[in-house]
């Protein structure tokens, strides 16, 4: 399918999901849960651009996500802007953070890069914890506007925004996948020295990858303050965001846009159900165990399993 067609088809699918869910579903909880699943679609797709496509493992997801959320807090305190603008702002700030991280870690590979991302996340968290303007370690309360801009409840509005963001993220991933940029990313992942010798501007491409990945993560975190209404560093920098962002693409499959989507929908739904029925700590345990199991048994994820079966036919 040509890239342009993909954008249109995926838009139609997203619009259909939106119309059906808002038209047919009355239970408010669906939109609470749905928001989280969609948020994870964006997070894991974003992670996969740097991780699955370019081969650089980012454990500092929490930093980009939380920076997006806290940039919204700052905007909320300074002035009153619609949430879509906050999303763009979150994306901008996190994109700059991604560029900075990429620049600092240019010459690091493998585990050193991963640890550096973790280090960055801790440093970012420490800075926010000590920044009283946004509440510091005590956290901050954010009041939702009275009226939702469209019809329906405010949560339905946030859900709709996240759906649009998920569509954009997935379409961007697919576009990259089929482009020269995507091939360049893959070359870097497979053998950076050979890529450089082959004419690929590896440093530039790595910066593009970290910036884009960071920006999308920041955008997924931007609406969070309005979603939770109480934001604190402990929850927004939570390691579970990092684990999920790694587990979902890994379980779904890292080589294609479909992997993170499958992983996010599957794991996200399981977690939403588990949080309600069993404890939330137990549901995190399940995610961790699934990650380990898949990494051992099916390292190419669900997409990889499907492709392997197709090849055997």
């Amino acid at each position, binding site marked *: 399918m040509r890239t342009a067609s993909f954008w249109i088809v995926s838009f139609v699918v997203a619009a259909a999901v939106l119309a059906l869910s808002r038209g047919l579903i009355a239970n408010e909880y669906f939109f609470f849960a749905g928001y989280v699943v969609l948020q994870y679609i964006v997070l894991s797709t974003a992670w996969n651009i740097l991780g699955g496509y370019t081969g650089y493992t980012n454990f500092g997801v929490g930093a980009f996500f939380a920076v997006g959320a806290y940039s919204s807090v700052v905007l909320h305190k300074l002035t009153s802007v619609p949430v879509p603008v906050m999303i763009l702002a979150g994306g901008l700030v996190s994109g700059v953070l991604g560029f900075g991280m990429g620049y600092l870690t240019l010459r690091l590979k493998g585990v*050193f890069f991963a640890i550096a991302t973790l280090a960055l996340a801790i440093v970012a968290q420490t800075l926010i914890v000590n920044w009283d303007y946004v509440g510091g370690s005590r956290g901050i309360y954010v009041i939702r506007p009275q009226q939702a801009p469209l019809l329906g409840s405010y949560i339905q509005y946030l859900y709709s925004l996240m759906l649009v963001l998920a569509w954009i993220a997935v379409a961007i991933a697919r576009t990259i996948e089929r482009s020269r940029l995507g091939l360049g990313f893959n070359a870097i992942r497979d053998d950076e020295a050979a890529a450089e010798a082959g004419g690929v501007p590896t440093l530039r491409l790595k910066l593009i990858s970290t910036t884009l990945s960071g920006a999308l993560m920041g955008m997924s975190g931007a609406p969070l303050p309005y979603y939770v209404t109480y934001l604190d560093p402990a929850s927004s920098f939570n390691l579970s965001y990092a684990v999920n962002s790694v587990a979902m693409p890994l379980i779904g499959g890292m080589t294609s846009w479909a992997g993170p989507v499958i992983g996010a929908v599957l794991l996200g739904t399981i977690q939403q159900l588990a949080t309600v029925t069993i404890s939330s700590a137990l549901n995190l345990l399940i995610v961790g165990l699934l990650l380990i199991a898949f990494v051992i048994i099916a390292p190419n994820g669900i997409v990889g399993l499907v492709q392997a079966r197709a090849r055997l036919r």
Partner: protein
Amino acid sequence: MLSLDLAVNAVVAGLLLGGFYAAVTIGVTISFGMLDIVNIAHPAFIMLGSFVAYFVNSSFGIDPILIGVVMAPVFFLVGMAVYQIYFYAFEQRGEESIQGLAFFFGLLFVGEVALILVFGVDYRFVEAPYIGPALHFGMIDLPLRMLIPCLVSLLMLAVLQLFLGRTFIGRAILAVSQDRLALQLMAANPTRIKRIAFGISIATASVAGALLIIIQPVEPSIGRDYIGRIFAICVLGGMTSFPGMLAGAMLIGIVESITATFYGPSWAPAVAFGFLLLTLAIRPAGILGR
């Protein structure tokens, strides 16, 4: 306001802390520095060691260091089992990077969550006669709860250094870390050696965990602070050298201690990580070779 008393004690505390940090890092120096296995889950095993010490100490009143040493063989077996899984899943298939990292990341996370499920998120501590009293030399205070772990840690370091240098298996481990091909030509099985070495690295976590809970009360998420510290010290120390690692550990211990004393403890976690970033930025040539 620079109080000499405060500063001197901060440095001393830092030295003692650094000695302890060496115990925490020695495992990774073996698994990552020597064997090239990216075990970022090492902090999870340390936390396990801490909670095992807590459990046995609070149930039977046994000294925590004794628990750590006695449990070390159990941790050794666990380490060998983990290596076996890692070897089957990754080293044999030639996969590397992301899947291997994800495996250990998953272990780290599962370890923390499992501890939360069993023990909850409250701080736990152990009881021992040397927690509380301190030695005094003029203006210098030496809390025993820091001095004793530091000494035990140095002892463990010395024992391991001797083991690596004097025993057959120890020297085989050193050989593997330098040249796998040569070892195969000598008809020693590198897999078996690596498994033993990895087991040893996890066994050190048993002792390190016991020392940790003597120094401070622990709760499951503390492990995360140690990832940065461990790798910072490992890199600072030049990856494979024990003396280098000890020096790096003391350096980080001192800087953390001074930061906590004069700027408050909430900045302390950032110190080690900041150091790590600095080290990685300034010494890329050494790292690129990996």
